[in-house]
Structure formats: structure tokens, C-alpha cells
């Protein structure tokens, strides 16, 4: 029996899809990209999870939180990382609006949202306590490897950071490299599993450069879909590549 209910909070830009019975203690947090919205970015995925997750041997054990932010008010990738940490800590501590405590987390991002996730992973000062031991996996859809040419059209502060090879992108890349080197030297088993998903019809982020530009710590066995940048996070049906990838991140 499907006991999933979508708890939607449009004013605060987040929605929680949780199983009523039995209660799960694992949470996947979804982070949208530039100009996205907390549910809209994921197309039919929330509905498909609502209708099918309880019957899925892997996904039944997970609840799903779709978080949002206003890209017009962002200054840096740190602002997105802060939002993710807030949601994580609310969930971990079982705030009343969440309704239960979660112990294990998976992060899924799209486009600009993936850079917020990278920022959280590399900046220990921003992280929830003992984050890596509770972080199950990271899946990044359409991550800008060098930036996005379309960011030149953006009038907002975060748009400047998104431009190809911008100071913001360069700094984040180096920050990730340092954090990865440090983690591998002192806590070898703690760097999270980071799966990249590229869309072969993606014209918005520079995927053609991905073989030349390596982000340290990424799983080199990346997934490739035939989709474009916007479509890659919007599955048409349950039996789809996207749902497989979400399941893989939760397995």
C-alpha cells in the first residue's frame, strides 16, 4: 500500500515526500539549478516516486526532500551550500516541520545546484557535523565542468561565477582538489561517492570539455544520457535511466 504524502511548502521553497508507515531514516536531498524550482526541475520524478517508491526494494527505504533557493539573491556557491546544510540539519535533528529524524543522506544536484553540493563537500566549515560518515552518495546531473556559456546572459551575481573559467569556478575547482587531497591523505575512506551524469545533447554546460577537465574525487565511470540539459532531470516514466541513477545512488 502506498503511504507516501507530499508535504509541500511553496512559500519556503521545499517539499518532503515521505513514507508514513513504516518511517524511513534515510533522506535524499534534491538541489535544483539556475532558474529552476524545487519541484519543477525534476519534472515527473516527484510524482513517480510518490506512486512507485514504496514498491521498489531500494527506494522504499528512502524519503525525498526537494529544496529550493532564489538564484537572484545568491552571491556565491557558498549560499547554496548553506541552504543544503540547513535542510540536512533540520532533517537530522527531526524538526517539527520535517516530523522525523534522518540518519543517512544522499545528495542529488542539477547544474548550478551541483556546484553548491561540491562547495559543501570541500568546505568542512560549512558541513553538518560528521557529514561524510552520514553521506551515502552524491549524484550530479549536468554539472558545469568549466562553467556555462549561457551565464553571460545572466545579470545576477551568481551568473558571474557561472561563466566559463570564472574566478569563482577556478577557486571552487582548486578548493575541491585541496579537500580531496587532504581527505585522501588523512581519511582515505571518507571521500564520498560522486557520480556524474552528462547529457549528450546538453548545450548549456560545457560537457565537451569534461574529458580534459577533471574534478578530483569524481567517479570516473560517469553516466551519459541522450538528453539535453533541461530534460535530463525529467523522467517520462518509472522505467527510465534517471530513476535507475537515483536508485543507484540510494543502493
Amino acid at each position, binding site marked *: 500500500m502506498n503511504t507516501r*504524502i507530499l508535504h509541500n511548502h511553496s512559500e519556503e521553497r521545499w517539499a518532503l515526500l515521505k513514507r508514513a508507515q513504516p518511517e524511513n531514516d534515510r533522506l535524499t536531498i534534491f538541489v535544483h539549478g539556475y*532558474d529552476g524550482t524545487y519541484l*519543477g526541475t525534476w519534472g515527473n520524478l516527484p510524482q513517480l516516486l510518490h506512486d512507485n517508491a514504496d514498491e521498489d526494494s531500494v527506494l522504499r527505504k528512502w524519503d525525498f526532500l526537494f529544496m529550493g533557493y532564489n538564484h537572484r539573491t545568491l552571491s556565491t556557491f557558498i549560499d547554496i551550500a548553506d541552504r543544503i546544510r540547513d535542510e540536512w540539519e533540520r532533517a537530522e535533528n527531526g524538526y517539527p516541520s520535517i516530523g522525523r529524524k534522518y540518519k543517512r543522506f544522499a545528495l542529488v544536484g542539477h547544474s548550478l545546484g551541483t556546484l553548491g553540493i561540491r562547495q559543501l563537500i570541500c568546505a568542512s566549515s560549512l558541513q553538518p557535523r560528521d557529514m561524510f560518515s552520514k553521506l551515502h552518495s552524491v549524484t550530479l546531473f549536468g554539472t558545469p565542468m568549466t562553467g556555462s556559456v549561457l551565464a553571460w546572459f545572466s545579470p545576477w551575481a551568481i551568473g558571474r561565477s557561472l561563466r566559463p573559467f570564472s574566478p569563482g569556478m577556478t577557486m571552487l575547482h582548486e578548493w575541491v582538489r585541496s579537500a580531496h587531497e587532504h581527505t585522501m591523505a588523512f581519511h582515505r575512506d571518507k571521500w564520498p561517492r560522486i557520480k556524474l551524469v552528462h547529457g549528450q545533447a546538453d548545450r*548549456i554546460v560545457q560537457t565537451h570539455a569534461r574529458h580534459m577537465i577533471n574534478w578530483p574525487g569524481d567517479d570516473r565511470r560517469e553516466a551519459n544520457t541522450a538528453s539535453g540539459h533541461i530534460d535530463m532531470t525529467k523522467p*517520462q516514466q518509472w522505467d527510465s535511466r534517471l530513476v535507475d541513477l537515483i536508485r543507484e545512488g540510494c543502493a
Partner: protein
Amino acid sequence: MSTTSAERLKEEKSRLDEILRGPWVKNAELARKSLTFTSDLHQLLANDRISAQDLKAVLNSRDRRRARDLWHRFEPHWPDNQFTVAESDFRDSFDDALTILQLLELAVETGYLSLEIVRPIARSEIIALLWALPARNFLDSYDYWTVRYIADRVGIDLGLPKVMPPQPVSNGETQFGAFLALVSEWSVDADLDAWLGMLDGYVFEDPDDEEYYEAEAFYEFLTTGDLPDEANLEDVLRYFSLARGAFKFLFQLHGILGPMQESERYFFVIFFAYYLSKFFGYELEQRGYVATDDGWDEIGDASAFHRLLSGAVGADLSGPTAMTQDQIDTASKAYASTVRDAVSTLRTLWNETMIKLAKSHSKRL
């Protein structure tokens, strides 16, 4: 009641509350206040069905007079009706007031809220906003299909041609959630407000140049990258704001409507019917939607973006983040292609919706 049912009821109450306190509520205050009535219209709420005659019969002489005085405020702005600033503010506010009813209808259609929970508030809202005949005619002028649907669903006959509300689906609630997030964001976005205003025919005039028509000049800007010769800084800022609004309109509608199944997207497309009809150059006439020459769907030419981009980043063409001509080419082509994809998808959805509307409704017969 099972735990799940109780939790579901609690969630629905929370969802309804959120719709009733969205950003459109504050904007609707002016219209709501202006439409305050003194007749005992609330007595009608005890009736299971309320007819247009009931609405008329219960009005006292003061409200009948007020209804007559409201005609001009609710007239369509075409072909060339003029409104004062106060009247325009009232009309904008009334649009926002109707947003609540539209959202309630969509929430029912998609299974986000049950009709039982929506019915009392929808009936009371309809009485409060649509007790006067001119207000009801406004629905017909501006394609407020969804308001007519919810009125039919809750047993109120508005005295307009009969409509057939679509059968609700049970699996569209997360789509509605996504849609609600979008509408909330749009209602506070100045760029979109400017762009939707332009689609609606609200444009700036130049007191020094009677020949200046802002919509045409902006269209030229979007399709060629050329600004009018006399454009000052204020014009440039306005044009870039309009452009951001236009592209956000396209990308976000494409993003949210494109992946939906055909059976569910109809509900959402008709919410935007008025603006999509303007974008694709259609006018609603006696015989249905009729194509005009005033569409915006030719935007998306790479050479225009090339010029826009060259101008927009001119100050940044040196230093560590310099953009080369190759990058401008790449960016322009990518942007143009993204715009064309969005226009193409929305055109398909709009055509499909027009056909369905034509089949389902006997508009103004």
C-alpha cells in the same frame, strides 16, 4: 480514520492555507475592498446550487447601482479602452484575486486538494468577487476558463456559456506543487511582470515621439539586437528586463509543461491560455482563437543574441574572464537553440490546447 488519512487531511488543510496566503493575496486586497457589498449574498451559500438569477435577485438597490458603475472597470482593454491609473491598479488586483480561484480549480483537477475541502472557500470567494455581472463578463473577455470551471464544480452558475470542467486526475499533485512554486515566483518577479504586461498590451509611450510603439521596438531588439536610435539608459535597462522576463517565461513554461503527460498538461496550459495566445499571436473571438500577425514566436535568432551578447558583455571583454568571439558565437548559438526548442514545444502544447478548447466549449454562442 487511518494514520495516513489523518495525515493526508492535515496536509490538505496546510496546502489550502498556503494557497490562501500566497503573494497574490496581498495584491488582491484592493479589488476585494472595492467589491465589498452590503446585500445579504451570504444567505445564498446555504443553497446547494446558485444561479445567476439568484445572484441578481438578492442584490439591494445600492449594490445594483454599484454593479452598473463597475462596467467600465471590467471592460476589455481592447480595442482602445483607456483606464486611469486607479482603474488599472484595480484591474491588476482583480487578476490576482482571481488567481486564488484558478489555483483552487487546478488543485482539484490535479488531486492536490479534494473538492470537499475546496468547496466552502471557493463558493465564498466566487460570491465575494463575482457578485456583479460586469465582473463575471471579465472572465469571458480574458479567458478565465479555470474560474468558470470551479464555479461550475461548486454549483454556481455565472450566467456565462456552459463549460465542461475536466475530469480530475489522481496523480497530478506533485505537478501542481511544482506549478504552485512557479506561480509564486512569477508573482514577485519584476522582469516577468514587465514582459507579461507587454504581452497584455501595457507598454510605455514616448511623449516626444508619437510614432514610437514600444512593443514593436522591443520586438526589433529581440530579433535583431538593435536598440532604437534614441534609446537612453532607462530604455536599455527596460529592454533587458523585458528580455529576461520573455526568456524566463519561455524556459520555465517549457521546463514545467514539456515533460508532463498529455492528459495532465492541459490543466496547466489553459491557466496560461491568455498569455500563450498573445505570444503565438492569437485573439479569442466569437468563433474561437484566430491567428493574427502579432506573435512573438520568431524570436530565437542566433545573430540577434550575438549582438545582444556583444553589447551586454562589452565591458567584460578584457581581463581574466574575457569572452572571445568564439565564445560569443557558441553562447549565442546555444541560447538561440534553447529558445527555439522552448518555442517549438510550447507551440505544440498551445496548438493541442486550442483544439481541445474548441472541442470542449461553445465559446460565446
